[in-house]
């Protein structure tokens, strides 16, 4: 167990590898009740979401989910989040646990002039994520929640319980948001049915292998979505959103630093904060690195000076006293298998 964003969270229940592979090949269950939830309702709700969010929710059908960021005026990232369209002018925002206080303050500050009701529902909602190729079957058979027909990145409400086909593992899967009592009962049923409980350890290795960012590593107040290669979630054709001008400038001029993948020849593991070098000179830092579990190679994501971000560029990484050669590769080390 380890402290994480005011929660005491399990790093692993049994073993990271075993939990990781359960999600890739069968399914695994995560207690992610620490995540924050904010609701936005009222006649300006859509206009407000468009203002704080980089992705475009205009004319979205009810039940659609969008991934994107909230940015500062300078393009730095406040947080990355999911926006669920629950109804007309009714949105459900899922934010990172470590950022709840900061995000809430930011959202309130940005709400001036909008006719909306903002509510921080983080205390009310518990959340579990059931992830992996067998998730759909388990949802229906063990929990009795029909979900077969749901498309990826959509949600529906069943008796007040929010069910979405989303996740943070690169596999098909679902997330359920409800009262802590309800979530606890779902957890118990799934565990009794033999589903593998999974900790934060494999949550990180799974998301990392498929190149999904973690706020604090690949996104931060200093790392914009454009630098992180997440420009596809920033819709510049929207009339306005906070950070648009700064991000458009970064995109046009090319950011000074870019997020890349690096593969090492050796088994040594590049970890967060280790230095990336070119001919002995520092050019960046590792953001996340592992000996990949599904790929059996030492790989990392790193933020490097843009001129070295070209695929195939030879670089070195300083790991303790030694320097190991590596090369720039795509920052997706394992293929996602989402349901279309």
């Amino acid at each position, binding site marked *: 167990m380890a402290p994480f964003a005011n929660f005491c969270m399990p790093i692993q229940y049994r073993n990271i590898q075993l939990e990781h592979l359960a999600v890739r090949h069968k399914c695994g269950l995560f207690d992610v009740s620490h995540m924050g939830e904010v609701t936005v309702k009222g006649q300006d709700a859509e206009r407000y979401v468009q203002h704080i969010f980089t992705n475009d929710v205009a004319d979205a059908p009810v039940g659609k989910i969008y991934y994107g960021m909230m940015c500062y005026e300078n393009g730095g990232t406040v947080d990355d989040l999911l926006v669920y369209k629950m109804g007309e002018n009714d949105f459900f925002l899922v934010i990172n646990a470590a950022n709840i206080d900061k995000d809430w303050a930011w959202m309130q500050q940005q709400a001036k002039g909008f006719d909306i009701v903002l509510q921080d529902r983080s205390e009310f909602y518990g959340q579990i994520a059931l992830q992996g190729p067998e998730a759909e079957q388990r949802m229906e058979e063990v929990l009795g929640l029909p979900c077969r027909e749901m498309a990826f990145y959509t949600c529906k409400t069943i008796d007040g319980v929010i069910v979405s086909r989303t996740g943070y593992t690169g596999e098909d899967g679902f997330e359920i948001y409800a009262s802590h009592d309800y979530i606890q009962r779902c957890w118990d049923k799934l565990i009794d049915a033999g589903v593998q409980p999974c900790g934060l350890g494999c949550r990180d290795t799974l998301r990392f292998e498929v190149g999904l960012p973690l706020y604090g590593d690949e996104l931060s107040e200093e790392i914009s979505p454009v630098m992180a290669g997440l420009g596809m979630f920033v819709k510049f054709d929207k009339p306005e959103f906070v950070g648009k001008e700064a991000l458009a400038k970064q995109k046009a001029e090319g950011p000074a630093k870019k997020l890349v993948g690096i593969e090492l020849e050796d088994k*040594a593991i590049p970890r967060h904060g280790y230095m990336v070098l070119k001919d002995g000179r520092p050019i960046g830092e590792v953001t996340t690195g592992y000996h990949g579990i599904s790929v059996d190679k030492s790989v990392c994501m790193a933020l490097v000076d843009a001129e070295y971000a070209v695929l195939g560029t030879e670089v070195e990484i300083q790991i*303790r006293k030694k320097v190991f050669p590596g090369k720039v590769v795509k920052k997706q080390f394992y293929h996602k298998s989402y349901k279309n």
Partner: protein
Amino acid sequence: MAKVIDGLFYSESHEYVKVEGNIGYIGISDYAQHALGNVVYVDMPDVDDEIEAGEEFGAVESVKAASDLFAPVSGTVIEVNDALDDQPELINQDPYENWIVKVELSDKSQLDNLMDAKAYAKFCEK
């Protein structure tokens, strides 16, 4: 319950030394390999490197984290366990059979600063 072997010397940072004459085999204890989980990489010094008691001389990495190795005794590295390059998991299978470095001890009196099996077993229970 972690396995502890009689006749070895143990440090508080969970390395052991097996002594044969003037030679010491240094590795990590069963308690340490359990705490680390699956070992995926062992960072070892080079032959002829001098290691100093109490100082870092390498690292053992699991998926979770890198854990520094601290030399329980001083000496000169005369061999490293190359098998661990390809099969770091040997440390999980049997940490006492699969030592990490073999050193020529420079000061055998340093062994007095280490724990015997009984004291170490008690230390691990804390």
